[in-house]
């Protein structure tokens, strides 16, 4: 039994190896379908606003600076979150939501356009966009059709469309974004315009 104690204590003596500070990773694996559609043009706001946990468990939903006058017919109101202050769905995969964002109007417009693989705009291109006013914010109407490259918790989608508004007031950015299959978005565009026009400041 003396030897037993000795043998069983060997593992205990080997613990003093300490943590490794450097390790070599030599493992590789072949490419799979998981490695398709790697989007390298994503900033941290876009990256981490995806995959957020349920608001009730982690993030508090900040108060929305705007309120809707009515929920458009055919839209379903969803629970709001830290990144979707007003949140709706429509059709099979359509969604519309109001967010507060960072950066400037041009940054946000170009971020949206990149999601559809469209060329970014310069200041002149921005100035040429349709002007929109909503709830004290001034901005532009943005449209993009084509293949949605994913982002904001969405899988990529072919034949999709985006309609929405990026607006600014006192350095604060407000976005109203509608995403979904092209036909569904086009069918809802007028309702979106009325929805935007009906937004009011919360206070």
């Amino acid at each position, binding site marked *: 039994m003396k030897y037993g104690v000795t043998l069983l204590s060997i593992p205990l003596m080997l613990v003093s190896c300490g943590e490794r500070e450097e390790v070599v990773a030599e*493992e590789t694996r072949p490419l799979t379908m998981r490695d398709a559609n790697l989007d390298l043009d994503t900033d*941290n706001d876009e990256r981490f606003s995806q*995959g957020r946990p349920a608001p009730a468990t982690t993030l508090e939903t900040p108060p929305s600076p705007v309120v809707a006058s009515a929920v458009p017919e055919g839209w379903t109101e969803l629970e709001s979150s830290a990144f979707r202050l007003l949140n709706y769905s429509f059709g099979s995969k359509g969604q519309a939501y109001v967010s507060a964002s960072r950066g400037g109007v041009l940054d946000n417009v170009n971020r949206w356009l990149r999601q559809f693989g469209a060329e970014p705009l310069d200041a002149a291109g921005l100035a040429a966009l349709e002007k929109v006013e909503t709830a004290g914010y001034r901005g532009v109407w943005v449209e993009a059709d084509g293949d949605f490259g994913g982002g904001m918790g969405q899988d990529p989608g072919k034949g999709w469309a985006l309609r929405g508004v990026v607006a600014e007031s006192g350095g604060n950015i407000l976005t109203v974004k509608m995403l979904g299959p092209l036909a569904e978005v086009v069918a809802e565009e007028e309702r979106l315009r009325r929805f935007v026009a009906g937004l009011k400041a919360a206070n």
Partner: protein
Amino acid sequence: MSKSKSPAQRIWRFLSGLGLATVLLILLGVQTWLATLEMVEAGLLDTLQKYFHWTSWYVLAELPLPFSDGHLIVPMPGGYWVCALLLLNMTLGGLIRIRKGWKTAGVMLAHFGIIFMVAAGGVAQLFEKRGVMFLFEGEQADYAVSLTDPTIEVVEVKDGAAVGEVHVAGERELHGIGRNSSRIIRFPDLPFDLELSGWAKNVVVVPEQKGSGNPSIDGWTLRELPLETEGELNAAGCYARVVREDGETGMPFILAVPPARSGLESFAPYSVEADGRTFAVRMVKETIPVPYAVKLDDAIAEYYPNSARPKSFMSKIERVEGESVPVEIRMNEPMRRGGFTFFQRTMSSGPQPSGGPEFSGFEVVSNPADKWPEWSLYVVTAGLGIHFLMMLFTSGRRMNRKPQAS
């Protein structure tokens, strides 16, 4: 003739002795009992890792004290190594040292079966890959995703598409890294390495919160969460920065696995430019490549009337490897192919409310010792059967002899 034995003989007798086998079996029994008690609070995965992982040389088992909220800490050798010693002991004692002959043939066979079973456990722990594959009808995939193990993946991107192989820092490289330590992951075939710090097993990436004290990257920071009892709900994360070959380090960034409840497989990868090449870097639950694609054609679920109790789950799939082969996977009727076994794990409960497609989830297992436990049971059964018949025969002969002797 001297009765004293040499040290080598003593070691031989000890290692092959019944005493050691008894101690080890009692240890395993106690460990299993303590682990069962502990997993109620600590969760199955963490408890199994603590007690039976090969890196656990020792265990500080927690025995709940009666009439108290306290625990008695019981130091014990790690279960993996107890099993390894048991395997050695049974090989030496049960196969080599044992008296050999027809009378012990059955016992030896049974010993061999048990050794085979213990070895199967060791092989499974070292080499088994286990993940899940969720598919909606019409979708296909050629990979499964581990439910538990985070990995860091680096792949070169050319013209918007991944090329070459994916370089992986997995469980071996990330095991044991702590919240307050840093570790450099060297990638021999890449023009840069990664320095990791602030590792936590369960985090969420949140907007910067003033006063939290956590580093902030572009207004985002990691917030550590309590470990989930169900290990697959944990989402690891850390801060990382690129270390180039000349020692220059880049700006820190956040690597994290998206929360399990988000439904996302990964956050968008970071882009790293080095040596005129572009690489994508991300943290995901381990990718397990499968040597063929599986396409889900139909997910069929049946439930007992007026209940949510499943009667049968069945998936009609196409296995695509050059040509497309139709296969049906049912509960308890897995598909085995190319070293992988696909078990029916879960399924959508009937038509989806939005009219969307139904889905099916498979548990995908790659284990070289997959069938060993089954075979070992046959061997043990055969061994004990032989031993029983031998004893019956011997006993019968003795009984027949007794009247003659009297």
